[in-house]
């Protein structure tokens, strides 16, 4: 555990180090100071304190803890909304029916975020610590990020008439991480099922936990490879897809469209080539027409 605690301190250091964007592991494209959170769902007790902490951090005006003591919300599956950036859901535990499994969801902060690739104006971008951040002042409200997200995370303020925003977990980038502190939910979590640390350390920790107690854990760290890897990682007792976590292949999503875009429009050559071909066609057909004056409709 010492390594991880040290990791938190190291992770907190990102704000002071003005790390340029290209300072990343070139083999994987992962920023060198990429942080993450490991969610050990076997420890979660479904207390909804993370939801409360999140609301307090992101909706500062008037959040009552009373609303978060209502456990009947677990009766129906929930997804994040524009004012609930993280939600916990309950799942049956066939092994121990008396102890249901609780799973927190929020933006996964992908290593190769598809929303960032899709955004038409760069309102979504990846910070050097791995946070996928949103700049409302650039946003035009096209909601293409919502279409692009494989985890179906971003929510929209449809009810806001003039200045609607895309809402998703901010990773508490401005509020806590910039001060070197873990996100609000991690700070609040009573049973310590959330661990904030450099992502590399978390992967090691997750595999060590699986190895130490193979009966308790399903042998897959969800988020290690999904969609090319995510900042948020999950340890589960049952296969992740039984716990509302989507099966997403390892291929980073932006690859297909970006390759397509970049090959079709490489230095603008293909469009210029098409332009040239059409110009030639225009000249050739014009010449043809002149040789056959009878066909042309000219006087």
């Amino acid at each position: 555990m010492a390594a991880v605690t040290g990791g938190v301190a190291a992770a907190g250091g990102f704000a002071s180090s003005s790390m340029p964007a290209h300072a990343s592991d070139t083999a994987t494209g992962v920023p060198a100071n990429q942080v993450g959170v490991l969610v050990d769902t076997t420890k979660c007790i479904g207390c909804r304190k993370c939801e409360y902490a999140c609301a307090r951090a992101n909706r500062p005006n008037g959040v009552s803890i009373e609303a978060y003591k209502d456990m009947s919300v677990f009766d129906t599956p929930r997804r994040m909304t524009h004012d609930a950036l993280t939600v916990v859901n309950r799942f049956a535990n066939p092994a121990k029916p008396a102890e249901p499994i609780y799973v927190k969801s929020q933006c996964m902060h992908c290593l190769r975020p598809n929303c960032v690739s899709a955004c038409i104006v760069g309102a979504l971008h990846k910070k050097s610590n791995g946070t996928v951040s949103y700049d409302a002042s650039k946003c035009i409200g096209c909601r293409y990020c919502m279409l692009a997200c494989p985890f179906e995370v971003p929510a929209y303020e449809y009810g806001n008439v003039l200045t609607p925003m895309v809402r998703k977990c901010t990773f508490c980038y401005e509020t806590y991480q910039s001060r070197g502190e873990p996100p609000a939910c991690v700070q609040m979590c009573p049973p310590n099922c959330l661990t904030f640390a450099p992502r590399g350390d978390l992967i090691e920790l997750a595999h060590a936990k699986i190895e130490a107690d193979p009966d308790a854990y399903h042998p897959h760290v969800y988020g290690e490879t999904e969609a090319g890897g995510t900042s948020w990682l999950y340890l589960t007792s049952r296969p992740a897809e039984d716990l509302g976590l989507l099966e997403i292949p390892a291929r980073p999503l932006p690859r297909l469209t970006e390759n397509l875009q970049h090959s079709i429009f490489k230095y603008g050559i293909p469009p210029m080539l098409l332009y040239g071909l059409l110009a030639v066609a225009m000249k050739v057909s014009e010449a043809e027409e002149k040789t056959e004056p009878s066909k042309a409709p000219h006087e």
Partner: protein
Amino acid sequence: MSHYPREPIPVKFWTPGVYLLCGIAAAGLLAALYRLVFGLQASTNLTDRFPWGIWIAYDVEGRVALSAGGFTMAALTHVFNRHKYEPIVRSALLVALLGYSCAVVGLLMDLGRYYNAWHPAMPWMWQGNSVLFEVGMCVMAYLTVLYLEFSPMFIERFAGRVNLPGPLARLNRVSNAFLATGGGFVTKIMFLILILGVVLSCMHQSALGSLILVAPYKTNPLWWTPVLPGLFLLSAIAVGFPMVIFEQLYAAWSFNRKPPMDLLGSLAKLGALFLGLYALAKISDFTIRGAMDHFFPLSLASVMLSVEVFAGVLVPLGMLVFRRVRQSPALLLTACSLIIAGIILNRLNVFLIAYRPPYMTKAYFPSLVEILVSLGLTATLILAYRAAVTIFPVLTKQESAKPAAALEASHAK
């Protein structure tokens, strides 16, 4: 390049049909105001699960595909120098111009922050990785091209004839001079503009298909294929010619003119050729990918796909093979209407039916306001076309003075 005399045609503007269209357009305008005042939540059925509805699937995707007649006719007539089509090219251009303009209005309705719509054009916000960025830039550029392509009609109509009312009259001379020099310049570079329009169209018509490629795990494999951009471009070209035929037959009926059946017949042949290529490409891709595995058990998606392919592609393709169909206004109109409906259905299918978010609890169906805005835009488009042909020299002079005479008689009353 005008070898065919064209004129603003004398049409009686107000007919019962026009009153109906005005009513629909007014309802659409009210619906649009409702959206602007009360927001997306109150006016649409969009949700976090379904961020895109008919304003994107129909008003942007559908309209832009149907407006492909503008670039296909420009390419055919002016790039490949098939001058016999000149009598109908201006009309096709006008419909494209109105179609794209309506698509932009539909898009603005959909944008949460429509007042930021200019952001993608600012270099410091360019995002070259985004497919949507490419669509946005190409559509903006092509809309400019369309207005330039249309400008000769404006100039022909007003150059040397500017007659502004009241104190503005002193601007008459300078306006005339501007139109004359501007017109001369545009005519000189028109061939460059025409080719640019074709290139931009090929780029964004295909990119409109790439849009859904970003969501491979949320899109039904009956439609999702990496070659979707190619299929979108091919289907846009394939619907372009039938759309021009449809316009011509509709205008002929509405304005009591004789449809140029010889031209429309040969356009129908071209349309059938591209529709055949599209059918071949779509069916081969479907088979090669093994998408048939997803067809059964029958679902809404597989039924919608069948309707799209059979009624919208194969049946009209089969019809257009026959000379008799290509020469009969009624049968030709039927075939072309099927193709148009088929391509609209394809776009709706890709963006509304094929898109199936994993956490979906309730399917999307457009709200009344969404439907009214879409219908209102279509009605506005038809009214604007009707107004434009009476103001600008779009259609050719026709000898049969019957409708004009009837009109004069009605004016005399």
